[in-house]
Protein backbone atom coordinates (compact mmCIF):
# COMPACT_ATOMS: atom_id res chain seq x y z
CA UNK A 1 0.00 0.00 0.00
CA UNK A 2 1.14 3.48 -0.59
CA UNK A 3 1.24 6.47 1.65
CA UNK A 4 -1.97 8.10 0.46
CA UNK A 5 -4.18 5.16 1.51
CA UNK A 6 -2.94 5.50 5.08
CA UNK A 7 -3.41 9.25 4.94
CA UNK A 8 -6.97 8.77 3.78
CA UNK A 9 -7.67 6.49 6.71
CA UNK A 10 -6.26 9.16 8.99
CA UNK A 11 -8.47 11.76 7.30
CA UNK A 12 -11.57 9.67 7.87
CA UNK A 13 -10.69 9.29 11.52
CA UNK A 14 -10.06 12.98 11.82
CA UNK A 15 -13.34 13.98 10.28
CA UNK A 16 -15.22 11.42 12.32
CA UNK A 17 -13.60 12.84 15.43
CA UNK A 18 -14.52 16.41 14.52
CA UNK A 19 -18.10 15.47 13.83
CA UNK A 20 -18.20 13.50 17.04
CA UNK A 21 -17.03 16.55 18.94
CA UNK A 22 -19.51 18.77 17.19
CA UNK A 23 -22.58 16.61 17.66
CA UNK A 24 -22.27 14.67 20.89
CA UNK A 25 -24.00 16.22 23.83
CA UNK A 26 -22.45 13.75 26.22
CA UNK A 27 -19.17 15.10 27.56
CA UNK A 28 -17.51 11.70 27.40
CA UNK A 29 -18.61 11.45 23.79
CA UNK A 30 -16.85 14.69 23.02
CA UNK A 31 -13.79 13.21 24.66
CA UNK A 32 -14.02 10.20 22.38
CA UNK A 33 -14.11 12.55 19.44
CA UNK A 34 -10.88 14.08 20.60
CA UNK A 35 -9.33 10.64 20.82
CA UNK A 36 -10.39 9.92 17.28
CA UNK A 37 -8.84 13.14 16.03
CA UNK A 38 -5.59 12.40 17.81
CA UNK A 39 -5.54 8.88 16.45
CA UNK A 40 -6.06 10.14 12.95
CA UNK A 41 -3.08 12.37 13.34
CA UNK A 42 -1.12 9.47 14.78
CA UNK A 43 -1.77 7.32 11.75
CA UNK A 44 -0.45 10.11 9.59
CA UNK A 45 2.70 10.40 11.64
CA UNK A 46 3.46 6.72 11.60
CA UNK A 47 2.71 6.51 7.91
CA UNK A 48 5.09 9.32 7.16
CA UNK A 49 7.61 7.69 9.46
CA UNK A 50 7.50 4.58 7.40
CA UNK A 51 7.39 6.08 3.94
CA UNK A 52 9.51 9.19 4.17
CA UNK A 53 12.71 10.40 5.65
CA UNK A 54 10.84 11.36 8.79
CA UNK A 55 11.86 7.95 10.08
CA UNK A 56 12.08 7.54 13.79
CA UNK A 57 10.89 11.07 14.48
CA UNK A 58 7.40 10.24 13.31
CA UNK A 59 7.16 7.31 15.66
CA UNK A 60 8.57 9.32 18.52
CA UNK A 61 6.02 12.05 17.97
CA UNK A 62 3.22 9.54 17.77
CA UNK A 63 4.35 8.12 21.09
CA UNK A 64 4.26 11.59 22.57
CA UNK A 65 0.78 12.01 21.17
CA UNK A 66 -0.33 8.80 22.82
CA UNK A 67 1.09 9.85 26.15
CA UNK A 68 -0.38 13.32 25.91
CA UNK A 69 -3.72 11.81 24.94
CA UNK A 70 -3.63 9.74 28.09
CA UNK A 71 -2.92 12.84 30.14
CA UNK A 72 -5.61 14.77 28.37
CA UNK A 73 -8.11 11.99 28.94
CA UNK A 74 -7.31 11.94 32.64
CA UNK A 75 -7.80 15.66 33.06
CA UNK A 76 -10.82 15.80 30.83
CA UNK A 77 -12.43 12.96 32.70
CA UNK A 78 -11.70 14.68 35.98
CA UNK A 79 -13.31 17.81 34.62
CA UNK A 80 -16.26 15.81 33.40
CA UNK A 81 -16.69 14.21 36.81
CA UNK A 82 -16.43 17.58 38.47
CA UNK A 83 -18.99 18.94 36.06
CA UNK A 84 -21.24 16.01 36.75
CA UNK A 85 -20.90 16.52 40.47
CA UNK A 86 -21.90 20.14 40.14
CA UNK A 87 -24.63 19.90 37.54
CA UNK A 88 -25.94 16.35 37.97
CA UNK A 89 -25.68 15.91 34.22
CA UNK A 90 -22.96 15.33 31.68
CA UNK A 91 -24.66 17.30 28.93
CA UNK A 92 -22.09 19.76 27.70
CA UNK A 93 -24.82 22.08 26.45
CA UNK A 94 -25.59 22.81 30.06
CA UNK A 95 -22.10 24.22 30.45
CA UNK A 96 -22.93 27.56 28.89
CA UNK A 97 -22.30 29.94 31.76
CA UNK A 98 -19.67 31.70 29.67
CA UNK A 99 -22.05 32.69 26.91
CA UNK A 100 -21.96 36.27 25.89
Amino acid at each position, binding site marked *: *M*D*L*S*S*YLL*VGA*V*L*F*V*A*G*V*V*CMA*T*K*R*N*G*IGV*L*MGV*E*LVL*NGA*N*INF*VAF*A*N*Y*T*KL*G*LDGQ*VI*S*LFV*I*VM*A*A*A*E*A*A*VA*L*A*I*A*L*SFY*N*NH*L*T*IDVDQANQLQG
Partner: protein
Amino acid sequence: MTGHQFLFWVFAAVTCGGAIAVVLTQNVVRMAFWLIVSLGASAGLFFLLNADFVGTAQLLVYVGGTLVLLVFGVMLTASGPFSKMQTRPGELFLAGIVAFLLLGLLGSSVCSVDWDRVVASTNAGQPITTHHALNQGYNRPEEGNTGHPLGMAFLGMRPDRDLAPGTKTLSTGYLLPFEIASVHLLVVLIGAAYLARAKRRIHPNES
Protein backbone atom coordinates in the same frame (compact mmCIF):
# COMPACT_ATOMS: atom_id res chain seq x y z
CA MET B 1 -3.85 -8.85 -3.77
CA THR B 2 -0.93 -9.34 -1.48
CA GLY B 3 -1.11 -10.10 2.20
CA HIS B 4 -0.16 -6.58 3.07
CA GLN B 5 -2.93 -5.17 0.93
CA PHE B 6 -5.43 -7.57 2.31
CA LEU B 7 -4.55 -6.80 5.88
CA PHE B 8 -4.51 -3.10 5.16
CA TRP B 9 -8.00 -3.19 3.74
CA VAL B 10 -9.26 -5.23 6.66
CA PHE B 11 -7.72 -2.94 9.28
CA ALA B 12 -8.62 0.23 7.41
CA ALA B 13 -12.19 -0.87 7.02
CA VAL B 14 -12.47 -1.75 10.71
CA THR B 15 -10.83 1.49 11.73
CA CYS B 16 -13.01 3.71 9.59
CA GLY B 17 -16.13 1.70 10.29
CA GLY B 18 -15.53 1.87 13.99
CA ALA B 19 -14.98 5.62 13.80
CA ILE B 20 -18.17 6.18 11.84
CA ALA B 21 -20.04 3.93 14.22
CA VAL B 22 -18.80 6.07 17.08
CA VAL B 23 -20.31 9.10 15.38
CA LEU B 24 -23.60 7.46 14.59
CA THR B 25 -24.21 5.63 17.87
CA GLN B 26 -26.14 7.47 20.51
CA ASN B 27 -25.42 5.12 23.40
CA VAL B 28 -22.25 6.15 25.12
CA VAL B 29 -21.13 2.69 26.11
CA ARG B 30 -21.54 1.41 22.62
CA MET B 31 -19.63 4.41 21.42
CA ALA B 32 -16.84 3.34 23.70
CA PHE B 33 -17.01 -0.16 22.30
CA TRP B 34 -16.77 1.07 18.74
CA LEU B 35 -13.97 3.37 19.71
CA ILE B 36 -12.09 0.38 21.06
CA VAL B 37 -12.64 -1.45 17.84
CA SER B 38 -11.45 1.52 15.85
CA LEU B 39 -8.36 2.19 17.91
CA GLY B 40 -7.45 -1.50 18.14
CA ALA B 41 -7.61 -1.79 14.39
CA SER B 42 -5.49 1.29 13.99
CA ALA B 43 -2.92 -0.45 16.19
CA GLY B 44 -2.99 -3.13 13.52
CA LEU B 45 -2.27 -0.42 10.95
CA PHE B 46 0.72 0.62 13.01
CA PHE B 47 2.04 -2.92 12.95
CA LEU B 48 1.63 -2.91 9.21
CA LEU B 49 3.67 0.29 9.14
CA ASN B 50 6.63 -1.41 10.83
CA ALA B 51 5.95 0.47 14.03
CA ASP B 52 5.68 -2.39 16.45
CA PHE B 53 6.51 -0.34 19.52
CA VAL B 54 4.01 2.36 18.67
CA GLY B 55 1.38 -0.22 17.95
CA THR B 56 1.95 -1.97 21.22
CA ALA B 57 1.95 1.33 23.05
CA GLN B 58 -1.31 2.16 21.34
CA LEU B 59 -2.77 -1.09 22.62
CA LEU B 60 -1.40 -0.72 26.14
CA VAL B 61 -1.81 2.97 26.78
CA TYR B 62 -4.69 3.93 24.56
CA VAL B 63 -6.91 0.92 24.44
CA GLY B 64 -5.95 -0.72 27.70
CA GLY B 65 -5.57 2.43 29.73
CA THR B 66 -7.23 5.51 28.37
CA LEU B 67 -10.34 3.82 27.10
CA VAL B 68 -10.86 1.89 30.31
CA LEU B 69 -10.68 5.23 31.99
CA LEU B 70 -13.27 6.59 29.60
CA VAL B 71 -15.60 3.67 30.16
CA PHE B 72 -15.10 4.18 33.84
CA GLY B 73 -16.09 7.79 33.40
CA VAL B 74 -19.16 6.78 31.41
CA MET B 75 -20.29 4.56 34.21
CA LEU B 76 -19.66 7.18 36.86
CA THR B 77 -21.63 9.82 35.01
CA ALA B 78 -24.51 7.78 33.65
CA SER B 79 -27.78 9.04 35.13
CA GLY B 80 -29.53 5.83 34.29
CA PRO B 81 -28.77 2.60 32.47
CA PHE B 82 -28.14 2.93 28.74
CA SER B 83 -28.73 6.66 28.89
CA LYS B 84 -29.02 8.57 25.67
CA MET B 85 -28.70 12.19 24.91
CA GLN B 86 -30.21 12.82 21.53
CA THR B 87 -28.75 15.32 19.19
CA ARG B 88 -31.22 17.35 17.22
CA PRO B 89 -31.59 16.13 13.65
CA GLY B 90 -30.91 19.60 12.32
CA GLU B 91 -27.55 19.66 13.99
CA LEU B 92 -26.79 16.21 12.70
CA PHE B 93 -27.63 17.29 9.18
CA LEU B 94 -25.48 20.38 9.42
CA ALA B 95 -22.62 18.37 10.89
CA GLY B 96 -22.98 15.85 8.10
CA ILE B 97 -22.60 18.55 5.47
CA VAL B 98 -19.57 20.01 7.18
CA ALA B 99 -18.08 16.53 7.60
CA PHE B 100 -18.61 15.79 3.95
CA LEU B 101 -16.95 19.04 2.94
CA LEU B 102 -14.07 18.52 5.37
CA LEU B 103 -13.48 14.99 4.20
CA GLY B 104 -13.58 16.19 0.63
CA LEU B 105 -11.07 18.87 1.42
CA LEU B 106 -8.68 16.50 3.17
CA GLY B 107 -9.11 13.78 0.59
CA SER B 108 -8.50 16.13 -2.30
CA SER B 109 -5.42 17.45 -0.52
CA VAL B 110 -4.06 13.94 -0.10
CA CYS B 111 -4.80 12.97 -3.64
CA SER B 112 -3.48 16.14 -5.17
CA VAL B 113 0.03 15.50 -3.91
CA ASP B 114 2.29 13.32 -5.94
CA TRP B 115 3.52 11.20 -3.07
CA ASP B 116 5.89 9.16 -5.16
CA ARG B 117 7.74 12.31 -6.10
CA VAL B 118 7.75 13.55 -2.54
CA VAL B 119 8.92 10.24 -1.21
CA ALA B 120 11.61 10.01 -3.83
CA SER B 121 12.79 13.54 -3.26
CA THR B 122 13.16 12.95 0.47
CA ASN B 123 15.36 9.94 0.03
CA ALA B 124 12.65 7.87 1.59
CA GLY B 125 12.07 4.25 1.89
CA GLN B 126 15.01 3.67 4.11
CA PRO B 127 13.82 1.66 7.07
CA ILE B 128 14.49 2.99 10.48
CA THR B 129 16.86 0.28 11.43
CA THR B 130 19.00 0.44 8.39
CA HIS B 131 22.30 0.74 10.05
CA HIS B 132 23.73 -2.47 11.29
CA ALA B 133 24.79 -0.90 14.53
CA LEU B 134 21.12 -0.96 15.34
CA ASN B 135 20.57 -4.49 14.27
CA GLN B 136 22.17 -6.23 17.11
CA GLY B 137 18.94 -7.05 18.83
CA TYR B 138 17.49 -10.44 18.54
CA ASN B 139 15.17 -9.67 15.74
CA ARG B 140 15.70 -8.68 12.21
CA PRO B 141 15.05 -5.09 11.29
CA GLU B 142 12.29 -6.06 8.92
CA GLU B 143 10.32 -7.44 11.82
CA GLY B 144 9.70 -4.00 13.13
CA ASN B 145 12.71 -3.90 15.34
CA THR B 146 12.09 -0.39 16.66
CA GLY B 147 12.37 -0.90 20.40
CA HIS B 148 16.05 -0.13 20.70
CA PRO B 149 16.22 2.84 18.34
CA LEU B 150 13.21 4.41 20.00
CA GLY B 151 14.77 3.89 23.41
CA MET B 152 18.00 5.45 22.19
CA ALA B 153 16.11 8.39 20.76
CA PHE B 154 14.35 8.95 24.05
CA LEU B 155 17.71 8.86 25.76
CA GLY B 156 18.94 11.59 23.45
CA MET B 157 20.94 9.54 20.96
CA ARG B 158 20.19 9.12 17.29
CA PRO B 159 22.38 6.31 16.01
CA ASP B 160 19.98 5.80 13.12
CA ARG B 161 21.03 9.18 11.83
CA ASP B 162 24.46 9.71 13.21
CA LEU B 163 25.85 6.35 12.18
CA ALA B 164 24.48 6.44 8.69
CA PRO B 165 27.15 6.83 6.03
CA GLY B 166 28.02 10.37 5.18
CA THR B 167 26.62 12.06 8.26
CA LYS B 168 28.85 14.61 9.85
CA THR B 169 26.82 16.23 12.57
CA LEU B 170 25.23 14.83 15.69
CA SER B 171 21.45 14.88 15.72
CA THR B 172 19.48 15.78 18.76
CA GLY B 173 17.38 13.19 20.48
CA TYR B 174 14.25 13.45 22.51
CA LEU B 175 15.57 13.33 26.04
CA LEU B 176 14.29 16.76 27.00
CA PRO B 177 10.80 16.33 25.52
CA PHE B 178 10.67 12.91 27.12
CA GLU B 179 11.47 14.34 30.54
CA ILE B 180 9.04 17.19 30.02
CA ALA B 181 6.37 14.72 29.02
CA SER B 182 6.99 12.63 32.13
CA VAL B 183 6.79 15.61 34.42
CA HIS B 184 3.77 16.82 32.54
CA LEU B 185 2.10 13.48 33.00
CA LEU B 186 2.80 13.53 36.71
CA VAL B 187 1.43 17.02 37.09
CA VAL B 188 -1.62 16.11 35.06
CA LEU B 189 -2.34 13.04 37.15
CA ILE B 190 -2.06 14.97 40.38
CA GLY B 191 -4.26 17.69 38.96
CA ALA B 192 -6.78 15.15 37.74
CA ALA B 193 -6.87 13.46 41.11
CA TYR B 194 -7.45 16.84 42.72
CA LEU B 195 -10.17 17.81 40.28
CA ALA B 196 -11.99 14.54 40.54
CA ARG B 197 -12.20 14.54 44.29
CA ALA B 198 -15.72 14.38 45.57
CA LYS B 199 -16.82 17.88 46.44
CA ARG B 200 -19.89 19.37 47.91
CA ARG B 201 -22.63 18.92 45.41
CA ILE B 202 -24.35 22.12 44.38
CA HIS B 203 -28.05 21.54 44.03
CA PRO B 204 -29.54 22.94 40.86
CA ASN B 205 -32.07 25.02 42.72
CA GLU B 206 -29.29 26.68 44.69
CA SER B 207 -27.32 27.64 41.64
